[in-house]
């Protein structure tokens, strides 16, 4: 039996809900088939919206009929589905009450979502603070029967990577027996679509939804809103090995920084983002030459994709010509707070299937990277890197390593 380093933390369970489906095998099949989850928004009128397309989630399944459901909002259901399925996948659902399980979730604009959806249903929650005594994470922890510390984090698109890093720290410190970490977001709302549309951040290819999300393509005109969640069970490697738990990957490295440049626009100075990626690689003790695949943040905005390409060339150096890069946002849209967590799942898919999901709609790349376009590419993947850069200037990078 090979040894594992004492601080090693493994991913032993996955739960997700995405525009590509609600089960891991369905999601992976969609990723590798290059199937788009983008379509016209059907859940509310969009005639006046500049962007009328999105990658929506659809009705969220019920996790367990016998589970307490004090939380009744769509976000509550999404959290229960993702967290519950992750614990089931790890083989720990039945024993969760006997373990101290921490919970770290990126939840984005939680309160704005709750107030808006309540308003749409005729409620007055935004005007009545007495209805807001519990947060989504409070209800989720109670409904799921988790007894460890719980933390909601927000760094926009970088939230999921931050959540995973914090969960890894908690495990290394012995604060928890296990940690469930990831992110969820349900941003495709009338106000959400309007806000991003008026920010001129969204693609306006309304007549071609499937072709609208075009990271790294010369014809990109903005991102497509997506929604969903991805959550992981993190476990100390020594514990997972002791119980012979199958593992998806090791959380090998984490790195973060801030641009300190603008609320929305990425810094023209790539050094903070470069620092985040290099910190993650250093944390994993990996050289750029050892990276087998990189899942880019690339959202399909003209400025952002080009900025990230510069970062990747700086970090990878000569390896930039051969490390396959994809942006799975071309398939799922931009899941905002949940994006980083989902893209970690996409990296696990690449490792499990030894094939890299494609960037679709990449007809005319305008960046110099080794891009995987149109179709999945068979490729050995042992080390994958996932970048997530968010509003507020957050830069994060996650390194996953096969075990």
């Amino acid at each position, binding site marked *: 039996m090979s040894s594992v380093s004492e601080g090693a933390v493994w991913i032993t369970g996955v739960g997700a809900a995405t525009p590509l489906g609600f089960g891991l095998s369905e999601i992976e099949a969609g990723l590798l088939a290059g199937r788009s989850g983008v379509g016209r928004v059907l859940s509310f009128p969009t005639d006046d919206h500049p962007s009328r397309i999105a990658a929506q989630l659809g009705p969220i399944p019920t996790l367990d009929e016998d589970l307490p459901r004090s939380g009744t909002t769509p976000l509550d259901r999404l959290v229960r589905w993702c967290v519950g399925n992750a614990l089931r996948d790890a083989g720990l659902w039945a024993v969760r009450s006997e373990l101290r399980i921490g919970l770290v979730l990126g939840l984005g604009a939680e309160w*704005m979502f709750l107030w808006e959806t309540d308003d749409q249903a005729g409620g007055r929650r935004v*005007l009545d603070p007495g209805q807001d005594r519990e947060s989504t994470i409070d209800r989720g922890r109670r409904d799921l029967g988790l007894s460890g510390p719980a933390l909601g984090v927000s760094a926009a698109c970088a939230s999921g990577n931050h959540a995973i890093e914090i969960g890894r720290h908690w495990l290394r410190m012995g604060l928890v027996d296990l940690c469930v970490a990831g992110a969820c977001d349900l941003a495709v709302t009338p106000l959400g679509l309007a806000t991003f549309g008026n920010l001129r951040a969204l693609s306006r290819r309304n007549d071609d939804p499937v072709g609208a999300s075009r990271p790294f393509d010369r014809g990109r005109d903005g991102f497509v809103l997506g929604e969903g969640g991805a959550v992981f069970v993190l476990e100390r490697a020594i514990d997972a090995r002791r*119980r012979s738990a199958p593992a998806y990957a090791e959380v090998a490295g984490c790195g973060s920084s801030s641009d300190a440049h603008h609320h929305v626009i990425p810094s023209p100075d790539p050094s903070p983002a470069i620092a985040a990626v290099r910190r993650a690689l250093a944390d994993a003790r990996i050289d750029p030459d050892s990276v087998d695949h990189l899942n880019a943040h690339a959202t399909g905005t003209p400025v952002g994709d080009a900025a990230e390409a510069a970062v990747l060339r700086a970090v990878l150096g000569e390896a930039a010509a051969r490390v396959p890069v994809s942006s799975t946002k071309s398939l799922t849209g931009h899941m905002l707070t949940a994006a980083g967590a989902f893209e970690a799942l996409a990296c696990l898919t690449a490792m499990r299937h030894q094939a890299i999901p494609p960037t679709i709609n990449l007809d005319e790349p305008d960046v110099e990277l080794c891009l995987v376009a149109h179709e999945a590419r068979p490729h050995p993947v042992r080390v994958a890197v996932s970048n997530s850069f968010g509003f507020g200037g957050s830069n994060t990078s996650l390194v996953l390593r096969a075990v």
Partner: protein
Amino acid sequence: MSLAGERSGLVTGSDFARVRFLAAEVAGSALRRARAPEFSALRKRPGPVPEGWSRTPPSLLRYSDEQTVLATASVFSAIEAMGAEPGEFEGWGVVAASRYLGRTSLAAALRSFAVEGVWGTSPHLIPHFALHSPSGTISLALGIRGPNIGAGGGLHGAVEGFLAATTWLAGGVIPGVWLVLSGWSPERVPDPSPSDDAECQAMALALRPVGAEKRRVPRFQVRIGEGDSLLDEVDAPIDLVRLAGDLGESAGWFSRTVATDPPGRVCVELVSGPEGPG
């Protein structure tokens, strides 16, 4: 092999030290308080901006939520009180635990959307009223490039803020962190128009890892209970005015729980005074 049956042995098979609390020293702090009519001026000048800290763009806070404005002001006040030099916080992180950020603005946005539809919706909602907005703004205002996140967001969000900040410190992610707690007291209700008897409060805490030497500086300890044990319970939200008074207290040593999570299994204690325990 059953994991449940080996719960007590989960870590005994290794040399893992089982940490039960996280801690941080308070290097500086400041509380700012303001009512609604004061924010017009605060947006333009959240200062006093300490000498040498001139990099804050003049329009930085133009569209920001009031909690973000006051949080930024509280950080500058703390810096001035510390006598800190620009560059002293290089690599520091920012954790901002606001409470119900953007309620008033979202209520206005919903009214506007109902009347005008998409054309009446401000593009500033997401950049300035999401949970990460205060932390991103503060990192921008200070020009510091360590990580920044929002934490919590609800009634017990202060505990989450302390959890995040002390985790980063204990994990060696950053050399120091600005933890900024904010909220309205009482909560500002938007209907029919925002109540102007409410006071916005923001406290900036400059936190560092606890030093190896005994130092007579206040510190926070985040204790995490096991199983169903109830560590303590205090009313939420956190009382920032009382906390500011405690941090300024110079007579005798004391320890007090300042915040707990809803089940009472995570609690934040302030240990303060000139004769801190070993």
